[in-house]
């Protein structure tokens, strides 16, 4: 008989339960008005999730995130692949990316808004910027590590460079690319929430601060739970996707945490 904790999905659930329990005890012990108990917060979740305005906010955030993420993949994966296979391309891009790396992408929001206005374009662009770098980096590392012999064999069988890139390098680098995508996905969510918190117009970040300004503390904490759950489930879905696509590769334990 399997122990209960060996069933997938059970340990995280138990962890969630104890986190909530710890919160409940902390809230009772501190007795702050600004720290409602976990139970009160969970009770206010249905109210938020059934409010059409809040749902629209969340949906528009997620849509922006998806668009920014998809655009970043279309840009970053080809660039990363070329960097991995050509020293000149790598030398061309590396210093630029090194300089851009420590720039807080969400902090560009006020400047980008001056140029592109307050519409969807600027929000999507910031997410795009936040996601691109880790995906480029991991794709670069992955395609650089592809064995030369594989490529020689391909060339001997008459594949041209473009075919080799598409048929050999891309699949061989896929596990590493997906590590980058996973980091990128977490970053997309972080960038989205952060930029919305900075600008406070629409979306989840705005929802969070609106409730804060109205002193609806339960709603603040409930929104935090929603954002957290979003992060957790996106990561979970991606992990499932990864096992389907590159189930043949060894699982990579990457330090898949980042910040925008």
């Amino acid at each position, binding site marked *: 008989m399997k122990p209960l*904790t060996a069933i997938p999905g059970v340990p995280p659930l138990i962890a969630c339960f*104890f986190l909530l329990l710890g919160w409940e005890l902390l809230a009772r012990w501190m007795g702050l008005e600004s720290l409602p108990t976990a139970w009160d917060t969970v009770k206010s979740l249905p109210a938020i999730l059934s409010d059409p305005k809040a749902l629209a906010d969340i949906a528009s955030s997620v849509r922006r995130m998806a668009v920014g993420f998809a655009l970043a993949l279309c840009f970053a994966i080809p660039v990363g692949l070329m960097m991995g296979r050509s020293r*000149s391309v790598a030398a061309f891009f*590396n210093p*630029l990316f090194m300089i851009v790396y420590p720039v807080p992408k969400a902090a560009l929001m006020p400047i980008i808004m001056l140029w592109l206005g307050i519409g969807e374009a600027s929000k999507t662009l910031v997410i795009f910027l936040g996601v691109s770098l880790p995906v480029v980096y991991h794709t670069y590392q992955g395609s650089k590590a592809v064995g030369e012999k594989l490529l020689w064999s391909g060339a001997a069988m008459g594949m041209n460079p473009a075919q080799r890139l598409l048929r050999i390098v891309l699949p061989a680098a896929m596990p590493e690319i997906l590590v980058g995508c996973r980091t990128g996905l977490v970053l997309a969510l972080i960038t989205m929430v952060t930029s919305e918190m900075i600008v406070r117009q629409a979306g989840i970040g705005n929802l969070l601060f609106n409730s804060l300004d109205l002193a609806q503390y339960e709603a603040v904490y409930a929104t935090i739970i929603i954002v957290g759950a979003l992060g957790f489930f996106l990561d979970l879905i991606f992990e499932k996707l990864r096992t389907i696509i590159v189930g043949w590769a060894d699982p990579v334990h990457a330090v898949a945490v980042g910040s925008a």
Partner: protein
Amino acid sequence: MTMNRRVSEFILGAIPILLILGLWEYLTITKIAPPTLLPSPGAVFTRFVMQLGDPTFLSHAGVTLYRLFCGFGLAVIVGVGLGIAGVGSPLVGTLMRPVIRVLAPVPKVALYPAFMLTLGFDHASKIALVFADAMFPILLATYQGALAVDSKLVWSARAMGVSRVKSLFTVVLMAALPSILTGCRIGLIISCIVVFLSEMISSTDGLGHLLVRAARNFQTVDVFVPLIAISALGLILNTAFNMLRTYLLRGFPEEN
């Protein structure tokens, strides 16, 4: 030959950066972009250098640095400590893994309002956010690095009479150092970014506050200056940390 290659790669790498600066300069000179929207690169850099001598600016930068290092320091202590404890005691490891699994992908910045409500609007909430964001990469890197340590090393130490707890610090911690330092470097850059963002979201001092204040007053030049300052700070810290890493890892064969 290698020298030539290095020079040509350096030139190649400089091209995109110069192109961007050139385009920026071109846009401002031809007035395609009005100076209120995009100040010239010259104006921004002069302003940046000027600000470096300004005590008010430096005190804002000091506040940012203080929060950065408090949060990062705490994250290193807790992250490395928990990571080593998780390997040293299977019980702690088993308890810790699901909690990390749940908390690691959560965008920590969403916790910021909660920190503000419980810890106040001053240093504490920002330090807490930096800590929460920087801790996970350090913890994960420590845990994975310590798990990968060859158990024969520990057995040898134990056979020579080193106690279980002591072997954690003298053998496991040391052998996992490359991985730990990689985690710390990621954590450091993250701290740098997060402290800035937290100051942008809500603050009355620090570099992030300077950016927001300038943006509200449409002083575009002053918007760029804190951004350059924090990015330069990130680059400098990253370089300094790499030097520290090379120094600390000078005995490790795979690092040379």
